[in-house]
Protein backbone atom coordinates (compact mmCIF):
# COMPACT_ATOMS: atom_id res chain seq x y z
CA UNK A 1 0.00 0.00 0.00
CA UNK A 2 3.03 2.21 -0.28
CA UNK A 3 4.47 3.31 -3.57
CA UNK A 4 7.33 0.78 -3.51
CA UNK A 5 5.30 -2.39 -3.18
CA UNK A 6 5.80 -4.29 -6.44
CA UNK A 7 2.94 -5.50 -8.60
CA UNK A 8 2.73 -9.24 -9.38
CA UNK A 9 0.75 -10.96 -12.09
CA UNK A 10 -0.93 -14.16 -10.95
CA UNK A 11 -1.42 -17.27 -13.10
CA UNK A 12 -3.54 -20.17 -11.87
CA UNK A 13 -3.81 -23.72 -13.16
CA UNK A 14 -7.50 -24.48 -12.56
CA UNK A 15 -7.23 -28.25 -12.82
CA UNK A 16 -4.71 -30.92 -13.68
CA UNK A 17 -4.36 -31.07 -17.48
CA UNK A 18 -5.08 -27.36 -18.07
CA UNK A 19 -2.54 -24.60 -18.64
CA UNK A 20 -1.95 -21.78 -16.15
CA UNK A 21 -4.07 -18.80 -17.10
CA UNK A 22 -3.88 -15.20 -15.99
CA UNK A 23 -6.12 -14.67 -12.96
CA UNK A 24 -5.27 -11.10 -11.98
CA UNK A 25 -2.65 -9.19 -10.08
CA UNK A 26 -1.76 -8.09 -6.57
CA UNK A 27 0.86 -6.19 -4.58
CA UNK A 28 3.44 -7.87 -2.38
CA UNK A 29 6.90 -6.93 -1.18
CA UNK A 30 8.47 -10.23 -2.30
CA UNK A 31 7.78 -13.44 -4.20
CA UNK A 32 6.97 -15.64 -1.20
CA UNK A 33 4.37 -13.24 0.06
CA UNK A 34 2.99 -12.72 -3.43
CA UNK A 35 2.47 -16.47 -3.74
CA UNK A 36 0.68 -16.71 -0.42
CA UNK A 37 -1.51 -13.70 -1.07
CA UNK A 38 -2.33 -15.13 -4.49
CA UNK A 39 -3.46 -18.33 -2.80
CA UNK A 40 -5.70 -16.41 -0.41
CA UNK A 41 -7.05 -14.02 -3.02
CA UNK A 42 -7.46 -16.05 -6.19
CA UNK A 43 -8.18 -19.56 -4.90
CA UNK A 44 -10.68 -18.86 -2.09
CA UNK A 45 -13.22 -21.04 -3.89
CA UNK A 46 -10.93 -23.89 -4.91
CA UNK A 47 -10.21 -22.28 -8.26
CA UNK A 48 -6.73 -23.75 -8.61
CA UNK A 49 -4.23 -26.52 -8.07
CA UNK A 50 -1.09 -24.55 -8.92
CA UNK A 51 -0.11 -20.87 -8.89
CA UNK A 52 2.63 -18.82 -10.58
CA UNK A 53 3.44 -15.27 -9.60
CA UNK A 54 5.52 -13.09 -11.92
CA UNK A 55 6.78 -9.57 -11.20
CA UNK A 56 4.73 -7.35 -13.55
CA UNK A 57 7.85 -5.29 -14.24
CA UNK A 58 9.59 -8.38 -15.65
CA UNK A 59 7.00 -8.95 -18.35
CA UNK A 60 7.95 -7.77 -21.83
CA UNK A 61 4.83 -7.18 -23.89
CA UNK A 62 4.33 -6.63 -27.60
CA UNK A 63 3.15 -3.14 -28.38
CA UNK A 64 -0.28 -2.51 -29.88
CA UNK A 65 1.42 -0.20 -32.45
CA UNK A 66 3.35 -3.16 -33.82
CA UNK A 67 0.26 -5.33 -33.89
CA UNK A 68 0.09 -5.50 -37.68
CA UNK A 69 3.73 -6.34 -38.29
CA UNK A 70 3.72 -8.83 -35.43
CA UNK A 71 0.62 -10.82 -36.09
CA UNK A 72 -0.71 -10.21 -39.59
CA UNK A 73 2.10 -12.06 -41.41
CA UNK A 74 0.75 -15.25 -39.86
CA UNK A 75 -2.63 -14.66 -41.44
CA UNK A 76 -1.76 -15.97 -44.94
CA UNK A 77 0.05 -19.09 -43.78
CA UNK A 78 -3.04 -21.19 -43.89
CA UNK A 79 -0.95 -24.25 -44.70
CA UNK A 80 -0.05 -24.33 -40.99
CA UNK A 81 -3.58 -25.42 -40.18
CA UNK A 82 -4.67 -29.04 -40.63
CA UNK A 83 -7.92 -28.04 -42.33
CA UNK A 84 -5.81 -26.82 -45.31
CA UNK A 85 -5.26 -30.39 -46.43
CA UNK A 86 -7.97 -32.34 -48.14
CA UNK A 87 -7.66 -36.06 -47.58
CA UNK A 88 -8.95 -38.95 -49.68
CA UNK A 89 -12.11 -40.46 -48.31
CA UNK A 90 -11.77 -43.31 -45.85
CA UNK A 91 -8.46 -42.27 -44.29
CA UNK A 92 -8.73 -42.54 -40.53
CA UNK A 93 -6.58 -41.43 -37.58
CA UNK A 94 -5.03 -38.48 -39.44
Amino acid at each position, binding site marked *: *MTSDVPLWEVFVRPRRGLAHTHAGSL*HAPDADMAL*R*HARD*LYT*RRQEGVSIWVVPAAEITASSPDEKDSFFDPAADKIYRHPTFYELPEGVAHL
Partner: protein
Amino acid sequence: MELLALGDDALIAAQRLAEWVSRAPTLEEDVALANIALDQLGAARMLLATVGDEDELAYRRDDHQFRNCLLAELPLGPSRGDLDFGWTMSWLLMLSAAQLLRYTDLAAVADEHAAGIGAKAVKESTYHLDHATMWMHRLGGGTEQSHRRVQEAVDALWPYGHELTEGVRDRWLAIVEPVLAEAGLTRPADRWRPDGGRVGRHTEHLSYLLAEMQSLHRAHPGAQW
Protein backbone atom coordinates in the same frame (compact mmCIF):
# COMPACT_ATOMS: atom_id res chain seq x y z
CA MET B 1 -6.35 -33.47 24.95
CA GLU B 2 -10.08 -32.82 25.43
CA LEU B 3 -12.00 -31.93 22.27
CA LEU B 4 -13.82 -29.19 24.18
CA ALA B 5 -10.55 -27.51 25.06
CA LEU B 6 -9.33 -27.71 21.46
CA GLY B 7 -12.63 -26.35 20.21
CA ASP B 8 -12.57 -23.48 22.71
CA ASP B 9 -9.00 -22.60 21.67
CA ALA B 10 -10.12 -22.37 18.06
CA LEU B 11 -13.33 -20.46 18.82
CA ILE B 12 -11.68 -17.83 20.98
CA ALA B 13 -8.80 -17.51 18.51
CA ALA B 14 -11.29 -16.94 15.67
CA GLN B 15 -13.05 -14.24 17.69
CA ARG B 16 -9.72 -12.50 18.30
CA LEU B 17 -8.47 -12.79 14.72
CA ALA B 18 -11.72 -11.41 13.33
CA GLU B 19 -10.91 -8.14 15.11
CA TRP B 20 -8.44 -7.55 12.27
CA VAL B 21 -11.13 -7.34 9.62
CA SER B 22 -10.76 -3.99 7.78
CA ARG B 23 -7.74 -3.07 9.94
CA ALA B 24 -4.82 -5.07 8.51
CA PRO B 25 -1.57 -3.42 7.33
CA THR B 26 -2.46 -4.20 3.69
CA LEU B 27 -5.65 -5.33 2.01
CA GLU B 28 -3.92 -8.51 0.90
CA GLU B 29 -3.15 -9.26 4.54
CA ASP B 30 -6.74 -8.45 5.50
CA VAL B 31 -7.85 -11.28 3.21
CA ALA B 32 -5.20 -13.62 4.65
CA LEU B 33 -6.15 -12.95 8.28
CA ALA B 34 -9.84 -13.44 7.53
CA ASN B 35 -8.95 -16.79 5.93
CA ILE B 36 -7.18 -17.90 9.08
CA ALA B 37 -10.06 -16.69 11.25
CA LEU B 38 -12.49 -18.65 9.05
CA ASP B 39 -10.36 -21.78 9.38
CA GLN B 40 -10.29 -21.41 13.17
CA LEU B 41 -14.03 -20.88 13.29
CA GLY B 42 -14.64 -23.89 11.05
CA ALA B 43 -12.48 -26.13 13.23
CA ALA B 44 -14.18 -24.79 16.36
CA ARG B 45 -17.62 -25.59 14.99
CA MET B 46 -16.67 -29.15 14.09
CA LEU B 47 -15.01 -29.76 17.45
CA LEU B 48 -17.83 -28.24 19.52
CA ALA B 49 -20.42 -30.19 17.55
CA THR B 50 -18.78 -33.43 18.67
CA VAL B 51 -19.30 -32.36 22.30
CA GLY B 52 -22.79 -30.84 22.11
CA ASP B 53 -24.74 -28.06 20.38
CA GLU B 54 -22.24 -25.58 18.94
CA ASP B 55 -24.31 -22.49 19.69
CA GLU B 56 -25.30 -23.63 23.18
CA LEU B 57 -21.62 -24.12 23.91
CA ALA B 58 -20.46 -20.89 22.32
CA TYR B 59 -23.20 -18.58 23.56
CA ARG B 60 -24.65 -19.98 26.77
CA ARG B 61 -21.55 -20.72 28.83
CA ASP B 62 -19.92 -18.29 31.25
CA ASP B 63 -16.20 -17.64 31.21
CA HIS B 64 -15.42 -20.17 33.95
CA GLN B 65 -16.97 -22.90 31.79
CA PHE B 66 -14.60 -22.30 28.89
CA ARG B 67 -11.58 -24.57 28.63
CA ASN B 68 -9.38 -22.63 26.21
CA CYS B 69 -5.79 -21.83 27.13
CA LEU B 70 -5.03 -18.32 28.34
CA LEU B 71 -2.97 -17.48 25.25
CA ALA B 72 -6.00 -17.71 22.97
CA GLU B 73 -8.00 -15.11 24.91
CA LEU B 74 -5.27 -12.47 25.31
CA PRO B 75 -5.84 -9.20 23.48
CA LEU B 76 -3.82 -9.01 20.24
CA GLY B 77 -1.70 -6.24 21.66
CA PRO B 78 -0.18 -5.22 24.99
CA SER B 79 -3.50 -4.18 26.56
CA ARG B 80 -7.23 -4.46 26.09
CA GLY B 81 -8.46 -2.92 22.84
CA ASP B 82 -5.00 -2.94 21.23
CA LEU B 83 -4.38 -4.52 17.87
CA ASP B 84 -0.70 -4.99 17.13
CA PHE B 85 0.47 -6.90 14.08
CA GLY B 86 3.80 -8.09 15.51
CA TRP B 87 2.00 -9.26 18.63
CA THR B 88 -0.57 -11.07 16.50
CA MET B 89 2.02 -12.90 14.42
CA SER B 90 3.95 -13.98 17.54
CA TRP B 91 0.67 -15.18 19.05
CA LEU B 92 -0.23 -17.02 15.84
CA LEU B 93 3.19 -18.65 15.64
CA MET B 94 2.84 -20.02 19.16
CA LEU B 95 -0.80 -21.02 18.82
CA SER B 96 -0.67 -22.59 15.35
CA ALA B 97 2.44 -24.63 16.17
CA ALA B 98 0.62 -26.08 19.18
CA GLN B 99 -2.58 -26.63 17.22
CA LEU B 100 -0.62 -28.42 14.49
CA LEU B 101 0.70 -30.88 17.07
CA ARG B 102 -2.67 -31.36 18.79
CA TYR B 103 -4.44 -31.94 15.47
CA THR B 104 -1.72 -34.30 14.26
CA ASP B 105 -2.31 -36.36 17.37
CA LEU B 106 -6.07 -36.14 16.90
CA ALA B 107 -5.77 -37.39 13.32
CA ALA B 108 -4.23 -40.58 14.73
CA VAL B 109 -6.97 -41.47 17.23
CA ALA B 110 -9.23 -44.50 16.77
CA ASP B 111 -12.49 -42.51 16.53
CA GLU B 112 -12.89 -41.95 12.79
CA HIS B 113 -14.95 -38.79 13.08
CA ALA B 114 -12.50 -37.10 15.44
CA ALA B 115 -9.57 -38.29 13.34
CA GLY B 116 -11.19 -36.76 10.26
CA ILE B 117 -11.50 -33.39 11.98
CA GLY B 118 -7.85 -33.65 12.99
CA ALA B 119 -6.70 -34.49 9.48
CA LYS B 120 -8.52 -31.51 7.97
CA ALA B 121 -7.30 -29.14 10.65
CA VAL B 122 -3.68 -30.30 10.25
CA LYS B 123 -3.60 -28.84 6.75
CA GLU B 124 -5.05 -25.57 7.93
CA SER B 125 -2.70 -25.26 10.89
CA THR B 126 0.25 -25.97 8.63
CA TYR B 127 -0.76 -22.98 6.55
CA HIS B 128 -1.31 -20.75 9.59
CA LEU B 129 2.10 -21.69 10.93
CA ASP B 130 3.63 -20.98 7.55
CA HIS B 131 1.96 -17.56 7.43
CA ALA B 132 3.15 -16.66 10.92
CA THR B 133 6.65 -17.92 10.14
CA MET B 134 6.87 -15.82 7.00
CA TRP B 135 5.93 -12.70 8.93
CA MET B 136 8.23 -13.46 11.87
CA HIS B 137 11.14 -13.57 9.40
CA ARG B 138 10.08 -10.26 7.88
CA LEU B 139 9.40 -8.44 11.14
CA GLY B 140 12.44 -9.89 12.89
CA GLY B 141 14.67 -9.14 9.92
CA GLY B 142 12.95 -5.99 8.64
CA THR B 143 13.59 -2.66 10.32
CA GLU B 144 15.01 -1.85 13.75
CA GLN B 145 11.53 -0.84 14.85
CA SER B 146 9.88 -4.03 13.64
CA HIS B 147 12.58 -6.14 15.25
CA ARG B 148 12.11 -4.38 18.57
CA ARG B 149 8.33 -4.60 18.45
CA VAL B 150 8.17 -8.27 17.59
CA GLN B 151 10.79 -9.17 20.20
CA GLU B 152 8.74 -7.36 22.83
CA ALA B 153 5.67 -9.31 21.76
CA VAL B 154 7.49 -12.65 21.92
CA ASP B 155 8.82 -11.77 25.38
CA ALA B 156 5.36 -10.84 26.64
CA LEU B 157 3.59 -13.88 25.19
CA TRP B 158 6.23 -16.53 25.89
CA PRO B 159 5.08 -17.38 29.44
CA TYR B 160 1.64 -18.36 28.12
CA GLY B 161 3.33 -20.99 25.97
CA HIS B 162 3.73 -23.30 28.94
CA GLU B 163 0.05 -23.95 29.47
CA LEU B 164 -0.44 -24.02 25.69
CA THR B 165 2.08 -26.79 25.15
CA GLU B 166 1.48 -29.04 28.13
CA GLY B 167 2.46 -32.55 27.05
CA VAL B 168 3.89 -31.47 23.67
CA ARG B 169 6.45 -28.90 24.77
CA ASP B 170 9.54 -30.51 23.28
CA ARG B 171 7.92 -31.03 19.91
CA TRP B 172 6.61 -27.47 20.03
CA LEU B 173 10.01 -26.01 20.86
CA ALA B 174 11.44 -27.95 17.94
CA ILE B 175 9.12 -25.96 15.65
CA VAL B 176 9.18 -22.55 17.29
CA GLU B 177 12.82 -22.14 18.29
CA PRO B 178 14.20 -22.42 14.73
CA VAL B 179 11.67 -19.81 13.54
CA LEU B 180 12.82 -17.36 16.20
CA ALA B 181 16.46 -18.09 15.40
CA GLU B 182 15.94 -17.58 11.67
CA ALA B 183 14.14 -14.30 12.40
CA GLY B 184 17.09 -13.14 14.52
CA LEU B 185 14.95 -13.09 17.65
CA THR B 186 15.94 -14.16 21.15
CA ARG B 187 14.12 -17.11 22.65
CA PRO B 188 12.96 -15.87 26.05
CA ALA B 189 13.94 -17.66 29.26
CA ASP B 190 11.37 -19.91 30.92
CA ARG B 191 10.24 -18.32 34.17
CA TRP B 192 6.67 -17.38 34.94
CA ARG B 193 4.13 -20.03 33.89
CA PRO B 194 0.60 -18.65 34.04
CA ASP B 195 -2.14 -21.27 33.69
CA GLY B 196 -5.71 -22.08 34.73
CA GLY B 197 -7.52 -21.83 31.41
CA ARG B 198 -7.97 -25.57 31.11
CA VAL B 199 -9.86 -25.67 34.41
CA GLY B 200 -11.87 -22.50 33.78
CA ARG B 201 -9.74 -19.96 35.68
CA HIS B 202 -9.16 -17.32 33.03
CA THR B 203 -7.63 -13.89 32.66
CA GLU B 204 -9.72 -10.73 32.98
CA HIS B 205 -9.88 -10.56 29.20
CA LEU B 206 -12.12 -13.54 28.49
CA SER B 207 -15.30 -12.20 30.05
CA TYR B 208 -15.04 -9.01 27.98
CA LEU B 209 -14.62 -11.07 24.83
CA LEU B 210 -17.61 -13.23 25.73
CA ALA B 211 -19.75 -10.25 26.72
CA GLU B 212 -19.41 -8.92 23.20
CA MET B 213 -19.67 -12.27 21.44
CA GLN B 214 -22.74 -13.44 23.37
CA SER B 215 -24.65 -10.16 23.80
CA LEU B 216 -27.11 -10.50 20.92
CA HIS B 217 -27.68 -14.21 21.31
CA ARG B 218 -28.36 -13.87 25.03
CA ALA B 219 -30.71 -10.92 24.53
CA HIS B 220 -33.10 -13.16 22.58
CA PRO B 221 -33.41 -16.45 24.47
CA GLY B 222 -34.71 -19.27 22.33
CA ALA B 223 -34.74 -17.25 19.10
CA GLN B 224 -33.67 -18.81 15.80
CA TRP B 225 -31.17 -17.00 13.57
